[in-house]
């Protein structure tokens, strides 16, 4: 099968890869680049486990084709911590016990990051609607929502 050469920036690094026309960004990340932090819960855009940030916007990696990515800028969970310093959202998820099995966590963290970048001071309801595309079957969302709200407070404080 013919493969296309694609050059993209992933977590700040320029990455060159080849992919076939049917491969999604999720396939490229997991199968070819072995970046397993982006999860596959459905492959059809319904669970949010594969959420990554593409050119500043959150997307379901399972709905984006690999060949569309030439020149793109992609942020995945592997790039969220800076070195070994966790992002405030990651810290707050640990503090608030906002994960149980953790399979939804990478996607939810990236969605929350994108949400707070757009809306640094969201209400509970805005957080809930912002995360409505990310399924979590374990937590009932309570601690996730609290963690995001608390991270927002901290991130606002550290900016001002």
């Amino acid at each position, binding site marked *: 099968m013919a493969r296309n050469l694609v050059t993209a920036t992933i977590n700040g690094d320029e990455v060159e890869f080849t992919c076939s026309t*049917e491969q999604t960004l999720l396939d490229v990340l*997991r199968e070819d680049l*072995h*970046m*397993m*932090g*982006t*999860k*596959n*819960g*459905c*492959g*059809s*855009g*319904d*669970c949010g*486990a594969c959420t990554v940030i593409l050119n500043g916007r959150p997307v379901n990696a399972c709905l984006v084709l690999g060949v569309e990515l030439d020149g793109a800028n992609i942020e*995945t*969970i*592997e790039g*969220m*911590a800076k070195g070994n310093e*966790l992002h405030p959202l*990651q810290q707050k*998820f*640990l*503090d*608030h*016990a906002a*994960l*149980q*099995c*953790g*399979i*939804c*966590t*990478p996607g939810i*963290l990236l969605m929350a990051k994108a949400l707070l970048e757009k809306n640094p001071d969201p209400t*509970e*309801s805005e*957080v*809930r*609607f912002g*995360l*409505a*595309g*990310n*399924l*979590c*079957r*374990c*937590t*009932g*969302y*309570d*601690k*996730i*929502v609290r963690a995001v709200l608390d991270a927002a407070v901290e991130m606002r404080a550290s900016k001002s």
Partner: protein
Amino acid sequence: MNNKDSAGTNFKWVGKRTRRPDGPDKVTGRARYGDDMIVPGMLHAKILRSPHAHAKILSIDTSKARAFKGVKAVVTSADIPDHPLTKPPYGPIITDFHDISCNVLAREKVLYDGHAIAGVAATSERIARAAIKLIEVEYEVLPHVLDPLEASKPDAPVLHDHQYTHGVDPEPEKPSNVFRVVTGGRGDVEKGFAGADIIVEREFSSQPVHQGYIEPQACIATASEDDSVELWTTTQGHFVIRAFCARLLNMDMARIRVTASEIGGGFGGKNNIYAEPVAIRLSQMTGRPVRMVMSRSEVFRATGPASGTHTRIRMGAKKDGTITAAEVDIYNQAGAFKGSPVGRSIETFFSAYTIENIRASGYDVCVNRPKVAAYRAPGAPMAAFAAEGTINELASRLGMDAVDIRMKNAVREGDQSLSGIKYGQIGLLDVLEKVKSHEHYSAPLGPNQGRGFALGYWMHGGGLSSVSANLLDDGTIAVATGNPDIGGSRSSMRVMAAEELGIDIEMIKPIVADTGSMGYSHLTAGSRTTFATGMAVINAVREIIDKLRALAAKKWEIPVEEITWEAGQAETGRDGIKALSLKELAGMATKMGGPIAGHSEINAGGAGAAFSAQLVDVEVDPETGFVSPKRYTVFQDVGRAISPDYVEGQIQGGAVQGIGWALNEEYVYDDQARLQNTGFLDYRMPVASDVPMIDAVLIEVPNPNHPYGVRGVGEPPIISAPAAVANAVENAIGITMSSLPLSPPKVLNAIEQGQAEKD
């Protein structure tokens, strides 16, 4: 144990909010789940599934698939051993290897849409997917049946010609979809009803619901020429997977070594084998590792949901609220093979109450759907839906408060569950009192809102657990258990070990070990892990403490009896002897006798009963019938919350699963019994914007059978949720609701009918 007071104020770690040991790997994407493993040289496998709900397989021709470029092997049921049917007497849980074999790969018949027929291993998943389409199967399509009541009728299409209903008199002459009838009871039901001032009789139905774990099933099998196999899989119990695979494939157990991946949710749905034996056979045939990952639609079509049910119930009470009699018949869908949790349903209906006269019968009914699997408190939520709904109606017809009627009939220490288990120290009254005194109970409601209440009962399990704890030279301790960590158990194990030793939790590293390195451990299921495996951790750590005391005795040359273990160090009352810390002792151990370890292999009993009561406010949109939960409070006797964060998390997650069960989730089949909603878009689980915060009120009535009072927490919170939500809807619209899910069309229809009756 070091003198723990029952109020828990003396604990250093128990009951504290600490970060979990596996947290950093999970927030950074480093944790490896079932689908995150790559083995060099591996092949990719896919499974061909039946498009028919019920059909005879006339022939399977795999020749074209085998000839396809990149295909390395094809398996069908001919490559998997068959086994004889299990014979009576039947236990409460039936593990029948004939059924398992037929479910793993269909033999003479396919029994549901999605039933596995053949497996293909190829050099890529794309090739495997293409190759399964080349397998030619000839079917003779048979009539199907989906509903348990329909399936119980004498003229229903029969799934298994060999199945005659067990437990009925006279013995049946014709095969039936009803595998067995399980009964329970006490007293004299007729007399009980004769003494009632009021009798409520109702029918309830509930739909099958899926566990909905976000991580699909995935495994990698690596077979070797010496007949050994390494299996990587996402499971709630790798020791059980090993036992099942060995038995099914007639292999030596010790030759199969199973490593449990991190698990992305299970809720009972990952207690079984599906693709694992197929992957093992394909690996044996090819001599290469074989990876098998289910798609989401395969998960919905072919893995087990909870039973759908139909219940007829009748309860009678005196004017003062004393319930005098109860009788119930429940039809539980087993799916394609026998084994729905009827016994648990029966146990759940009335065991929270002191009703003197009870008769309960449960029908285990095969239908053309995937075989049911456990789902959080299997059999209980649907039973509670009927029993609690009926009690709520009794209360309202008697003009009684919903909590008061339960208090009037509540079980206390010394009373018995329906199956005759005598209650020890239980917290039911404490839970009910807490509900009444809580502000939510009497808070005002807005327009179109209603408040619901229900109670749930669960008898926890204990069982087999093994633990191995190793003290290292630097004083840190590796604690290995055989239980996959599904919701924070490593955190609880670490807390209990540190509490016993009196050391910092960071000095303890908990891990989940593979089946080659540990004694048998049963599933992470039934809320047993913190209770049973926790007990084994405590035993193992105590063995270490004893060995450290002996080491100190040797060092000080005094009798070991004089040495106590306090706050992480060996002490003696003698003047002039300075206490030795864990670290100091660890450093001298290897030079003074050898490494120090503790281990424990137990069958833990006495987990005891737990109760969860729920208050929920919903708002019903009168225009659309859409129900929105606005406020939710769960009151639960948790025994002792070792890690309160994860106890609350279990409660919140269980309640929200119950909300989904009550309001949205159901399977949609077409007229050919093909499943239509095989994805999360149409199988609508609650999302963040569907639910409010879930307040968890923890009531701690310690379980006397556990060193720290643990009872288990995961199952109870789902049990009362569907009943509580339905009750809230009833109170909002003033109409009784007896059929789940309470989806908008159903609620709207009820509102309109109620309106029409008024007009």
